[in-house]
């Protein structure tokens, strides 16, 4: 959010510190995560490997269609670890943001976290993003014979307006 504090790379001591990425501290009370980092697609597997080694769970993978304002499809991944020390518990959540050029592919995290299997299928289903290395990339929520990706902004609105295509099958995008 607006009151994020940019810190030097040296200040970040988390599990992915050796990657030299610019982690930005976030105000957990306002954002629900502690660290945010913008990474390149190719850097995702390295991040996943380090987070897995440090026992962070792959909590969520999703995407945003930011083509209208930023010209990219944004992949958002959160890694979180919770620790219990005596009666006290705490969580540490990292948010990794990867911007993809429309039509670009992303590396799959299935090899690091089996949880990625279904979450990446959902991103493929809803946004048409292809994940290289995914063992079984196919639709998960929408019908198998769909020819659209429903969470793309140009698919249209629920009421069928908001696009020149309407909610018709011609709004197909991606693959």
């Amino acid at each position, binding site marked *: *959010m*607006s009151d994020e504090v940019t810190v030097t790379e040296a200040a970040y001591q988390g599990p992915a510190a050796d990657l030299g990425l610019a982690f930005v501290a976030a105000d957990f*009370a*306002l*954002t*629900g*995560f502690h660290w*945010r980092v913008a990474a390149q697609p190719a850097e995702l597997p390295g991040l996943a490997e380090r987070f897995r080694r440090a*026992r962070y*769970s*792959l*909590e*969520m993978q*999703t995407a*945003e*269609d*930011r083509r209208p*304002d930023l010209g990219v499809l944004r992949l*958002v991944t*959160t890694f979180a670890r*919770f620790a*219990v020390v005596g009666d006290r*518990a*705490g*969580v540490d*959540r990292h*948010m990794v943001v990867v911007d993809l050029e429309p039509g670009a592919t992303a590396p799959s995290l299935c090899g690091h*976290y*089996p*949880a990625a*299997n*279904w979450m990446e299928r959902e991103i493929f289903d*809803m946004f048409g993003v292809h994940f290289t290395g995914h063992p079984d990339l196919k*639709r*998960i*929520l*929408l*019908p198998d014979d769909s020819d659209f990706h*429903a*969470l793309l*902004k140009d698919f249209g*609105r*629920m*009421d069928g307006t*908001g696009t020149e295509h309407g909610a018709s099958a011609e709004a197909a995008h991606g693959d």
Partner: protein
Amino acid sequence: MVTEPTPPPDGDTYFLNMGPQHPSMHGVLRLLLELRGEQIVSAEPIIGYAHRAHEKMAENRNYLMFLPNTSRIDYLSGMIYNFAWCEAMERMNGIEVPERALYIRTIAAELNRISSHLLWFGTFLLDLGGVTPFLYCFDDREAILDLLDTVTGSRLTYCYGRFGGVTMDVDATFVAGTHAFLARLRDRLPDYKRLVRDNPIFRERCEGVGAIGPEVAFDYGVTGPCLRAAGVAYDVRRAEPYCIYDRFEFDIPTASNGDSLDRFDVRVREIEESARIIDQALAGLPEGPIMPAKPKKRFKPAAGELYYAVESARGHFGTYVVSDGSETPVRVKLRTPSFSNLSSMPEVLRDTMIADTIAIVGSVDVVMPEIDR
């Protein structure tokens, strides 16, 4: 003594579709099972039959208009999802919630958690062939639905929260009714133990069946009672306390084997812990308003991202909201616990017997509308 059926030779497998209209399958879940004899070689859950495009709807309406959607995500613990959206919005908009409303939310959410666990208890036993407990559990659950009906006006798909508080105040009748219900529930729990937990047939069906170990849970992001049954004391209410959960004393029940019986035990003990929380919240319920003095009418959160996690009856429910400063979200992602819990099934069901499938899937407590969204 039942003799083990002789499996056909290797390679001789067949496929069986269980669901989406199987009478014992929970909601519209379809399991594509590859079987060798009665043994499961591979299992693939096929989902999406109850997809209603909640996330798409969220992008098509303003923040307030999405509120009624939230309790339809998981219709069995809708109150918790409804409050999660309110709390996420309060955080994004910097809205202060009056103390009394926070206590009321805690009471309502924990009552909803008990009713969700009771429904699971009854239907799980029904899956296993025990019809009687179902009637008792639904009788108890009915008392909760009646209580919540008096303050929310709904019995299932509650829309009790508002950005800044709750819609209606609780009165002395509700407080007395909740006390009476808890007393009755505590009276019933020993009966349930005698009727169900001590029943050798029930134990045979559950003990050692469908174990989800801590490693599998970690791999697939399994949370909630399924994770705690594997011995991991993770509960969002403790790990990142939201609402006012840091003010109450409660234990996080865990078990060690992660099998169906452990999941059963954990949920039953969670009912007791929720009752403890409600007791404390009723005792501490302050007087005062239930909404801010001047509630906002339009909500335009500053541009940014928010991840807001709560502990639903099924595990870690995360709401991810992206705002561009307008009245409509850019993106809302609902990270639902049942989705991740079910995604572990191919691993968990492999090499089990088909007769145990219902016991295993039932004990995980999946809610299909929550998975499909």
